[in-house]
């Protein structure tokens, strides 16, 4: 694991995780949410499917793909039943810890050779990517995948 200059924090993470674990039950428990407690299932308009495909960089406009999408949304609908009133959302388990600030002194870098070795395609000292026009430019993801 490459925790660059962050070693003191590994211990902190562990402490936090231990604390969290103490409050967590030993065995998983759940009960299924009955269908009638869920809001009516939403229809997904065609332009929303378009947008999701674009953001996910996936092509799922098949009958099977749409069924899968509907199931995923229905599964997530169960979260709507959980009462979150008066509960502040948590960003991370470290959110009450002090943010580590670094001095403005160069400590890293100068490892182009090492990094470029990880790449399949390079030209001189550059990484090589497929032509850059993937993101919504043409409306749909056009590169092969």
């Amino acid at each position, binding site marked *: *694991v*490459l*925790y*660059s*200059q*962050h070693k003191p*924090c590994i211990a902190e993470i562990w402490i936090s995780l231990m604390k969290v674990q103490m409050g967590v039950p030993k065995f998983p428990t759940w009960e299924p949410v009955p269908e009638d407690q869920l809001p009516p299932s939403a229809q997904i308009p065609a332009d929303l499917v378009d*947008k999701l495909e*674009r*953001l996910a*960089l996936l092509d799922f406009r098949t009958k099977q793909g749409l069924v899968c999408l509907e199931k995923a949304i229905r599964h997530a609908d169960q979260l709507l039943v959980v009462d979150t009133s008066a509960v502040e959302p948590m*960003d*991370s388990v*470290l*959110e*009450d*810890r*002090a*943010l*580590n*600030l*670094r*001095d*403005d*002194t*160069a*400590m*890293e*870098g*100068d*490892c*182009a050779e090492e*990094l*470029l070795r*990880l790449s399949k*395609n390079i*030209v*001189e*000292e*550059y*990484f*090589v*990517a*497929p*032509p*850059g026009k*993937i*993101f*919504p*430019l043409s409306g749909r993801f056009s590169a092969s995948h």
Partner: protein
Amino acid sequence: MNILNVILKNYRSRLQRNQTTWPPPVLQRVSCYVICVNKYQYFVQKFPRGAPVNSNREENGKRNIYAPQQLVGVVGLEIHAQINSNTKLFSGSSVRFSAPPNSLVSFFDASLPGTLPVLNKRCVEAVVMTGLALNCTINKKSLFDRKHYFYADLPAGYQITQQRQPTAVNGRLTYSFLEGKKRSQVTKTVSIKQIQLEQDSGKSLHDDVRGQTLIDLNRAEGQLRVDANVSVHKPGEPLGIRTEVKNINSIRYLAKAIDYEIQRQIDILQSGGRVQNETRLICTADKAPLFSTPAFRFMPEPNLPPLIVYEDNASLPAGISVCQAVVLQAIRQELPELPSIKRDRLVQTYGILPEHSFTLVNEDGLVEYFESVLKVTKMEPRKVIGWVTNDLLGHLKQQDMSSIQTAQLALVYILLRTRVFLLAAASQVFQEMWTSSGKTAQQIFQEKDLALVTDTAQLHSICQRVVDSHPEEVDAIRNGKKKVLNKLMGLVQKETKGRADPVLVRNILQEKTS
């Protein structure tokens, strides 16, 4: 001579340190009105809330006064400025202009799995200072967010930024400029929505021939970049649908692009159309839309706890050392004199015109130069300002800007050497320095025989000649008309081609006419 050497030495080292900021590039000249710390990886958003923007102003050179139902433009600027730091915002790799590609990249910058961001304290201090300079409220607790988009120059797939709660919010910048033939001063205020820290993306070079994109993750482009959000509406009504004009990297184009976009939207609405929410590139003449504004899927950055800014050292909680804390009080003390305050001070202290204070402040280093000339020469400020704004800047604009350093040194030298500011002599040497390169100020000084006449005996004899040949004036002075002495002084200066030490001449003449 010793003192002279010390001052010259100080001056030279100051010049060397300022080598890159003098002459000021166009960008820097502009940035002093936008922000005072022109640095790495954060951006300022200027947002005049509902302020009408003159869309078609240049008709007959007059400003249009809008009829109540007329459409007006509303403009928000997103200004990206690089913080002047040694290392990057979230990693300890260097920041350097024009370094070999990917040489300034750490494992974190390359988004290798398992690496974590570590925030640069210097960048936080810079954004807090900028916030203070722009009259912002500094959030004691600010948060980091991830902004997602898929592009090869962003290997992590997201950029760390501050969306929900940026470090500085709700600021304002009051600025003045001179307008019209009378150069009357106009003062305006622009609201600042927020100032936030944001990670830069990499740089991509498109190789159309081979159909590939080359990626450099160094991320130190060193430029000020502006995106403009433009919409039109009728005053008092809700804001219209906005478009974003991207890719503006010169101030001249900024105004052009905004004027064009406002007019385009007015034309669309007046012909019954609808403005599309889209991003437009400035590079093509017809500004074809680039892409519709994407959803960035913002989410909290889980790897960075909230950033806390403390009021003073006393408010630091136990376990937080001073070197790990960002303290408002300390940053407030380090805030340099801001341009508007500096301008007021110059006008108040030296009695110069407001327009001259603009000229001085807008050129990097010119205020310091002006003040050091005053200090050394003890000269009347209003006389020096004319020389600085006319001769010096005039030459700067015409000639090779890099010569300024020599010229400055030369001038300081002359001023020191003569001890009295002899405008004619200094100007002459200065002129000569631009035209005949290679000659030192001293050489010209000697060649042209411009040295100040301080030989008392010589001055005595010249003064005696003048007094003898002007008995009427001498009588007038003896009868109490002291001002006539100036005429005699003028005559002495004429004889010496303006090189006589005025203080000496005055003393001698007073002696001879009493």
